[in-house]
C-alpha cells in the first residue's frame, strides 16, 4: 500500500527537488527570477531606473509560469503535490482554523502524531477537524512518520468523528499521506481492521463530512479518513491506489518508469473528476500552492465555507441517503458480457445450471444505481 516510505521531500533523485525547493521543470522560471533579482539589486546600488526591463521580465515570468502549470504532466503534478514547501496541516491550523482544541486520545494504545484531530472553527462553522500530519522539520517528521498513520491514528480519528456526530458538528478531513505506515507494529495492531472500520462507520455517521486532499492522497491510508458527502482535491494534489513508484516497480518491473505509471494511473484532479471519483477541484494559485501558501489556504477555506453551508442545510436522513448513493455508484465501470468472446469452459458439469442463472432482480438492482454518464452497457439477463 504505502510502497515507499522514503521522505519524498528529502530531495531524492525521483522527486527532483533541489535544495532551494525547486522542481526540475521549474528551472527556467528560476533563471528569470534570478535575473529580476540581479536587476533589482543593480537598480538599488546604481540608482538607475530599471523598472522597464524588470517589468518585462516579470511579465515573461508570469507567462512562463502559466504555460508550465497549465500543462503539468501527471508525474510533475506528483512532484508539486510532494513539494517540501507545500502547505501542510499545521499551516491550515494556523491560518484557516480558529480556536483549535486538539484532542489526542485514542483511549487504547497511544497518540499517533501522524493524525491530528480536534475541535475548531472554519469560516464561522464549528467543526471536528481530522487530518494527516507530515511534519515541518526533521524532528517532527520523524515523530509523525512523515504522515503515515498507524492503526491508533485511524482509531483516534473515528473516536473524534463519533464525538462530532454526538454533538452534531460537521467533520472536515484534510488528507495528505503517502499511505498508512507499513511496519510490524501497524500489522500487529490491526491496520487493516482499523481502516476497514473507519470506512464502514464514516459511511453512516449522522453528520456532514467534507474531505479534501491537500497534497498526497496515498491509497488506503488516505481513504481511511476519506469517506463522506464531498470529496475534493486541491488542483495539483493527487489521489492514487498506489504510488507511481510502487506501480512502476510491480507492473513495469522498474521504478524508473514512475513517470509512465503516473500517467497510466489517472491520479490527477482533472482525471479523477472525469471518472467521477471526486466531486470538486479547488484551484491553486499560479505556480502551485508552494508559491502562495496563503492564497491556497484561503481557497480551501472558501470551499469549506460554501460546502459546509450547503451540507448543514440538508436534513440528516437525506444527507445519509445521498452519501450512500454516492458511495454505491462511484467507480461503477462494469458491463454485462452478453456476448462472451470465448464460451465459458464448464469445469464442473454439476454447476452448469447454476452457472447460467443470472439473477434478473439483482441485475436490475445494480442498474438503477448507476451514475448517469457512467459507461455501462445495458445488462441483458440470460
Amino acid at each position: 500500500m504505502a510502497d515507499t516510505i522514503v521522505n519524498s521531500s528529502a530531495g531524492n533523485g525521483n522527486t527532483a527537488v533541489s535544495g532551494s525547493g525547486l522542481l526540475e521543470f521549474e528551472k527556467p522560471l528560476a533563471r528569470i527570477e534570478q535575473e529580476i533579482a540581479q536587476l533589482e539589486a543593480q537598480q538599488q546600488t546604481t540608482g538607475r531606473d530599471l523598472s522597464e526591463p524588470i517589468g518585462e521580465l516579470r511579465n515573461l515570468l508570469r507567462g512562463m509560469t502559466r504555460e508550465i502549470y497549465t500543462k503539468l504532466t501527471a508525474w510533475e503534478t506528483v512532484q508539486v503535490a510532494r513539494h517540501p514547501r507545500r502547505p501542510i496541516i499545521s499551516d491550515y491550523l494556523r491560518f484557516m482554523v480558529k480556536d483549535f482544541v486538539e484532542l489526542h486520545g485514542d483511549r487504547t494504545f497511544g497518540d499517533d502524531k501522524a493524525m491530528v484531530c480536534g475541535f475548531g472553527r472554519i469560516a464561522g462553522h464549528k467543526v471536528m477537524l481530522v487530518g494527516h500530519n507530515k511534519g515541518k522539520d526533521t524532528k517532527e517528521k520523524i515523530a509523525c512518520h512523515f504522515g503515515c498513520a498507524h492503526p491508533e491514528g485511524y482509531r483516534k480519528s473515528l473516536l473524534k468523528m463519533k464525538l462530532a456526530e454526538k454533538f452534531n458538528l460537521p467533520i472536515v478531513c484534510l488528507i495528505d499521506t503517502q499511505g498508512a505506515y507499513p511496519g510490524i507494529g501497524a500489522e500487529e495492531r490491526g491496520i487493516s481492521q482499523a481502516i476497514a472500520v473507519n470506512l464502514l462507520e464514516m459511511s453512516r455517521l449522522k453528520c456532514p463530512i467534507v474531505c479534501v486532499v491537500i497534497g498526497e492522497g496515498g491509497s488506503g491510508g488516505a481513504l481511511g479518513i476519506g469517506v463522506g458527502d464531498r470529496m475534493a482535491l486541491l488542483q495539483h494534489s493527487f489521489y492514487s491506489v498506489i504510488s507511481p513508484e510502487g506501480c512502476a516497480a510491480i507492473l513495469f518491473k522498474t521504478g524508473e518508469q514512475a513517470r509512465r505509471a503516473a500517467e497510466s494511473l489517472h491520479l490527477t484532479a482533472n482525471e479523477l473528476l472525469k471518472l467521477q471519483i471526486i466531486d470538486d477541484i479547488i484551484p491553486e494559485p499560479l505556480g502551485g500552492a508552494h508559491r502562495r501558501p496563503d492564497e491556497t489556504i484561503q481557497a480551501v477555506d472558501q470551499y469549506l465555507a460554501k460546502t459546509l453551508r450547503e451540507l448543514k442545510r440538508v436534513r440528516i436522513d437525506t444527507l445519509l441517503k445521498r452519501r450512500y448513493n454516492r458511495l454505491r455508484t462511484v467507480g461503477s465501470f462494469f458491463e454485462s458480457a452478453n456476448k462472451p468472446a470465448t464460451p465459458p469452459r464448464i469445469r464442473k458439469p454439476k454447476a452448469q445450471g447454476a452457472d447460467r442463472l443470472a439473477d434478473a432482480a439483482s441485475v436490475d438492482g445494480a442498474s438503477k444505481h448507476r451514475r448517469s454518464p457512467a459507461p455501462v452497457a445495458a445488462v441483458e439477463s440470460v
Partner: protein
Amino acid sequence: MPLQPAPIEKKTDIPEGVWLRCEGCGEMLYTREFEEMLRVCKVCHHHHRLDARTRIKQLVDEGTFEEFLADLVSTDPLQFTDRIPYKERLQQIQEQSGEKEAILVGKAYIKGRGVILGVMNPAFIMASMGAVVGEKVTTAAERAVEDNLPLVLVTASGGARMQEGMVSLVQMAKTSAALAKLDDAGGLYITVLTDPTTAGVAASFAMLGDVIISEPKAMVGFAGPRVIANTIKAELPDGFQTAEFLLERGFIDRIVERKELRSEIARLIDYCGK
C-alpha cells in the same frame, strides 16, 4: 497496493489418478485422496489454494449455488496498459480460468441453511478487487438484506486491482458502506479468510465480519512483507501476517480447518438466529 504482479496462475484442476507434490511439505500425495481431503495435505495439513468453483463445491449443499451477476466484466476505465493492455490480460485470464471475474456471488444452502455466498478466486489476477468485485460484493450484501439471509464471504486477494487505478480503491468504501447497511438491518455477516487475504480487501470487507474465521496458516495482512522489510530494514518475525498471528493479537475469532468449515458456518448461523 497489490502485493505482487499478477502471476499467471497454474491450473488447479488435477487429473485423477496421478500423484502430486504438496506445496507445504513436498510429500507426494495421491490425487484422489488429496481431493477427498479437500486439497489439504494429509501429512502437514497445508491448505492448498482453491479456485472459486472448487471452494463452492466443497462448501455448499450439492447443486444449490445459484449465481447472480455472473456476466459482469470491467470496462477498463483507464485504458490501462502495462506489459500488455489490461483488456488483453483480462481476456487471457478469462480463457485460462473459465471465469469472468475474481469473485463468484450467489445464493446457496450450507447444511440446509440459506445464505448469500461470495467466494473470491485467487486464480484470477490474485483475486484483486476492481469495479466488478466491488459491485458483486455490494450486491451480495444488499441481497442479504432483501432476502433476510446471512452473508458469507470467502476472501482471498492481493488487494486492489492496480489496472483500474482509483476506481479500484473506491470499491473499498463502496463495499464497506453496503456492509454498514447489512449491519443496520441486523443481518449476520461471516467472513472466511483464506490464503492470501491482503491489502485493500483486508482493509475493507474481509475485516468487517460479525464473526471472522480463517483457514490455518492463511496469510492475512495489509502491507506487503517486502515493503515492510524495506521500511524497517530488518527481517520479519516468523509467522508474521498469518492467521495464527492475527488470532493471537485479537483480530480474528477462530481458526477453522477446511473440513470443519461447513459445520462451523452452520453452527454460527444457528446461534445468530437467521
